[in-house]
């Protein structure tokens, strides 16, 4: 079966905030409306809706059911939800369009990350017998990985600080970003460890946020966007859940996903990597074989704004926008999930 040509034709993101007093639905609704206005379509034009979120973020069982209020399910609509980052909802929507059943899909995701102890909440997804009862935070698990990388010489503390410094500088040009700064790597290296070998700036900033993306097929996409971001390859791989059985110093799932998505077929102008820890960006660059000429995370990336369950889809939005703007011709969007880069979703998009 020949694959259909599918593209991102519009994106919208809510500026990051902390301790938002809005409900998840109130956060989502204006962003979805803004996106529909931007793409100049009506709710009735959407053939498939797909949502990414996690009940543990909002502290409300089956919160995704009430989230449907944000999209208006009357008359009844075709909707699906993934208990994961919105990037995985985008993958599902891409598959749905591939089936030929629909031509237009709207993908959205949200995370009220700051209303609970996010570091501990994320750890609830670890092995429930051997790991979760110890209550290691996600930062602690990432710190174990960082130490192994540092000792193996795969990364250096200076490289990690440079990733943070670059991200905070780039964030200054991004209205959605939260943490912004102009520190040098030396300034950052002078900061104390928070979870040795990690410093505060090595860890992503939890924020409340949401975003939405419209996907469309073929000529519909060409009608809806001047320069659609065509999805040329997309792949998702997962490493074992057993923390000790994985290599700490490379990401084999990211490497395979990148290879299957066709990353190496041509140069990548912009790569939006979902790396919640500085050393993980370096690991991902190695795994995907990204060269020095690729601009990494011009948005500032997840380090400067990490709305849990929406930060991956945000990478797709940022990468697609660089195609829309004409500032890039071939881009990479990536989403990770699970502790220590357990899962990796890689997508390559091109302008025409």
């Amino acid at each position: 079966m020949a694959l259909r040509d599918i593209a991102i034709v519009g994106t919208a993101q809510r500026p990051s905030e902390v301790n938002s007093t809005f409900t998840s639905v109130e956060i989502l609704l204006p962003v979805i409306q803004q996106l529909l206005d931007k793409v100049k379509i009506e709710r009735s034009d959407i053939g498939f809706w797909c949502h990414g979120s996690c009940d543990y973020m909002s502290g409300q069982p089956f919160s995704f059911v009430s989230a449907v209020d944000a999209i208006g399910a009357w008359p009844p609509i075709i909707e699906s939800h993934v208990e994961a980052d919105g990037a995985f909802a985008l993958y599902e929507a891409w598959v749905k369009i591939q089936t030929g059943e629909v031509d237009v899909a709207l993908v959205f995701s949200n995370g009220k990350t700051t209303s609970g102890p996010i570091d501990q909440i994320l750890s609830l997804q670890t092995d429930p017998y051997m790991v979760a009862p110890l209550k290691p935070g996600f930062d602690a698990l990432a710190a174990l990985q960082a130490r192994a990388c540092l000792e193996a010489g795969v990364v250096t503390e200076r490289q990690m600080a440079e990733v943070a410094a670059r991200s905070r500088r780039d964030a200054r040009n991004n209205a959605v970003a939260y943490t912004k700064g102009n520190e040098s790597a030396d300034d950052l290296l002078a900061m104390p460890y928070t979870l040795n070998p990690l410093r505060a700036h090595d860890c992503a900033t939890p924020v409340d946020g949401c975003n939405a993306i419209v996907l469309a097929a073929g000529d519909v996409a060409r009608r809806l966007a001047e320069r659609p971001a065509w999805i040329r390859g997309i792949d998702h791989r997962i490493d074992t859940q057993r923390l000790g059985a994985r290599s700490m110093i490379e990401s084999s799932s990211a490497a395979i996903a990148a290879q299957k998505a066709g990353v190496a077929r041509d140069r990548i102008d912009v790569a939006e990597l979902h790396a919640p820890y500085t050393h993980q960006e370096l690991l991902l660059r190695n795994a995907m074989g990204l060269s020095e000429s690729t601009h990494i995370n011009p948005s500032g990336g997840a380090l400067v704004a990490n709305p849990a369950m929406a930060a991956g889809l945000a990478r797709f939005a940022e990468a697609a926008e660089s195609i829309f703007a004409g500032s890039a011709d071939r881009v990479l969007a990536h989403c990770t999930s699970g502790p220590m880069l357990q899962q990796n979703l890689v997508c390559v998009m091109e302008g025409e």
Partner: protein
Amino acid sequence: MVGDVFVAPLVVAYPYKRTVGTLLSRFFTSLSECRLEGTRGSDGRVFFPPAEFDPVTGAPLTEWVSLSDTGTVSTWAWQETPVEGQPLGHPFAWALITIDGTDVPMLHAVDAGSPDNIAIGTKVKVRWAQDRPGGVTDIACFDVVGGAS
């Protein structure tokens, strides 16, 4: 109240009780009796905690291996400010620890006293919990061999 909006603490809690199956039942029973037991895979690798299924062939694993209560740190991180419910209430190290005679490390805490007392390669030994209902927390934590703390 935050601004004009009602905000209040909300506790969401579930009292889960998990049935762990035959293999892990034997494993958790051995922990409650202060013994470490792992399983051997088809390629000869020994897993602690035991793997239920062979990572290579997928077959159920049945060969048990008795282990000593010592191991080696393969990576570590320093928890300066412990969170309620973690193995220790004072600063400690998280570590991946390879129990002697096994091939895959496990996560646990090391009561090292200071980050200066732990490194990759440090030898550690199990400290058993007083109360051992059967679970990974039957191991209270690990101590540095030679008593760094």
